[in-house]
């Protein structure tokens, strides 16, 4: 009896099991669609519409003397303008430097902090709390504090370096095209390395003690234990952390905007601040929109890798 029913549900050899049509599958799940409908409507209003409107605007010119509804169709002119402008190239390079350097050093610093905090020692809790401060304080407040630290006349950093005899006079960190981007990157690393630290500390918890002991018995020194046991275990969380940092850095706005506003002479602009300036400073909505669409495409690509990294982590764990 049970054998007979077992065979009946299985398709016979050579016969392709027929998949139910999309429509019938949708109908079968109609209540599920109903449940997610409110969320979808909200998403459409606050996300999909702005995206659509930005894409639309990117094909128009919006001279300041015209009303928005009288915008002028220009095709892909805005894209051409953006992509061929020398400022765009300069800002793109700055964005890449900003993102890469911030991500790399924040991750490295976070990894170091996580590894040193992973061992037990007296005062570990206090250290952990202290190192978390940059991450939890407001970025605007931090930016103002750093702006003051960097200040060419009253800045603490300049004063200390003069007193210690490193320099004859205070360095002008922010009003100098050569040093401004690096100075901002330092602030950004300081601000976000604790995020990497928290992520990696969580990752370190998953490294089995027994594996470390096995490696110890097998003769691995501290570096080899890290390289052969700990680091492979951190691969998944590292990938996610780096991607999240990259996305956050591509999108970061507060630090450059508050500290320099992109100056001097665009030397500390990154894409986001530049777009903001074009749109809300110079009212060049069309150009800014085209610019934003380019950024959007780049972000989507990053997002794709992020999701891929996430699901790969799941697969590795499932296996």
């Amino acid at each position, binding site marked *: 009896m049970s054998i007979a029913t077992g065979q009946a549900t299985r398709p016979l050899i050579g016969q392709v099991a027929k998949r139910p049509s999309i429509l019938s599958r949708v109908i079968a799940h109609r209540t599920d669609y109903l449940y997610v409908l409110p969320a979808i409507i909200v998403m459409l209003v606050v996300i999909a519409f702005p995206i659509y409107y930005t894409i639309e605007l990117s094909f128009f010119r919006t001279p300041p003397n015209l009303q928005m509804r009288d915008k002028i169709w220009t095709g892909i002119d805005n894209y051409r303008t953006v992509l061929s402008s020398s400022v765009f190239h300069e800002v793109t390079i700055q964005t890449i430097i900003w993102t890469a350097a911030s991500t790399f050093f924040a991750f490295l610093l976070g990894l170091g902090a996580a590894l040193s905090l992973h061992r037990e020692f007296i005062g570990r809790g206090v250290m952990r709390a202290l190192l978390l401060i940059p991450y939890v304080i407001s970025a605007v407040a931090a930016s103002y504090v750093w702006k003051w630290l960097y200040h060419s006349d009253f800045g603490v950093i300049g004063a200390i370096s003069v007193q210690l005899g490193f320099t004859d006079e205070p360095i002008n960190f922010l009003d100098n095209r050569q040093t401004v981007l690096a100075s901002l990157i330092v602030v950004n690393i300081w601000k976000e390395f604790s995020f990497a630290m928290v992520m990696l500390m969580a990752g370190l918890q998953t490294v*089995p003690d027994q594996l470390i*002991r*096995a*490696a*110890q*018995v*097998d003769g691995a020194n501290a570096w*080899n234990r890290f390289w052969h046991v700990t680091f*492979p275990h951190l691969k998944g969380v590292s990938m996610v952390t780096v991607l999240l940092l990259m996305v956050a850095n591509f999108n970061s706005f507060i630090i450059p905007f508050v500290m320099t506003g992109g100056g001097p002479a665009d030397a500390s602009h990154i894409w986001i601040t530049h777009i903001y300036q074009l749109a809300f400073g110079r009212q060049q909505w069309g150009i800014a929109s085209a610019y934003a669409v380019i950024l959007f495409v780049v972000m989507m690509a990053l997002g794709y890798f992020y999701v891929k990294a996430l699901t790969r982590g799941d697969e590795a764990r499932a296996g």
Partner: protein
Amino acid sequence: MAEIVLQRVMKNYGPLYAVNDVSLTVNDGEFVALVGPSGCGKTTTLNLIAGLLPMSGGDIVIGDRVVNDLDPKDRDIAMVFQNYALYPNKTVFKNLAFPLQMRKLPKDQIDQKVRDAAKLLDITHLLERKPRELSGGQQQRVALGRALVRDPAVFLMDEPLSNLDAKLRVQMRSEIKRFHHNLNATIVYVTHDQLEAVTMADKMAVMNGGFLLQYDTPANVFANPINTFVASFIGSPAMSLIPLEGVTSGTDASLRSPEGWELPLSPMNARKAASSTTSKIVLGARHSTLKLHKTQVPGSVPGKVYTVEPTGDVTFAQVFINGAVVNISVEPSVVIHPDEQVFIEFDQERMHLFDAETTMALQAA
């Protein structure tokens, strides 16, 4: 291969002594099982031998070196862990090669040694696989291989079979025994399963509460348990322990129950009972030494059947005597029922007497 000597080894965490004054010698080529319940200090002792934990006191000698301050890698030991502890991102080959690689052996030698070990353990066909693609038994064999490949002086095994299912465990038990026989290896083996210890080890060290209670061959531990803990821990079903009162009149002695019966003791047992610090004595007996009668015979005491468990070639019964549960094995042909009144005859030659106060086995003075 080498011998291991532990001299007054201590490990404390604040006021808590995980290992308390443990001294024992593992002879060259001997298979020693550290056995005891969870938290008895057996794994800590193993980790101290391995050098994975710092000692609080005492000395450990492996071969002819005092290894107290040596790192695990310098102690010439290999370890097999409970969860196998295979490197998940490495293939079986690379897992086996890792300890050799860390010792900077030339590549062709590594290759040769790995293949030899793989052949010995019959895992050659698995060399290119990752640990997660292996069954529990295969992973266990790889873990053994990783220990074996280095040709260490001592093998330390921390409950290597406890993650396997029952059938595989029995199979791997004989494989590890064979492994020991073939290599003539010195092995220290930690287990909470007394059956593993009894079946595999040349000697067993029974631990409880950080103390080493008894260190002897399984047969001796089984026959002469040093105290009530060892008596009830080793053997399955456990030795039955009945708390009674010792009574002497002249040279005769007997054990009296508050239930009203009295069990006369043989002269030998009477001398043992006389050495007790108080009159409270615990009578111990293994199931196979007891005889069950339906009617009272001389030297038997009354009891009430609690449960009957037929296992096929032998039937186990639990009988209440003086409030204690007594295990007894009977022929399957014997028909008994729960709540039935029966009489249990003790074998004076093979019964054990313990001091109820100190829990120690009583010796004839």
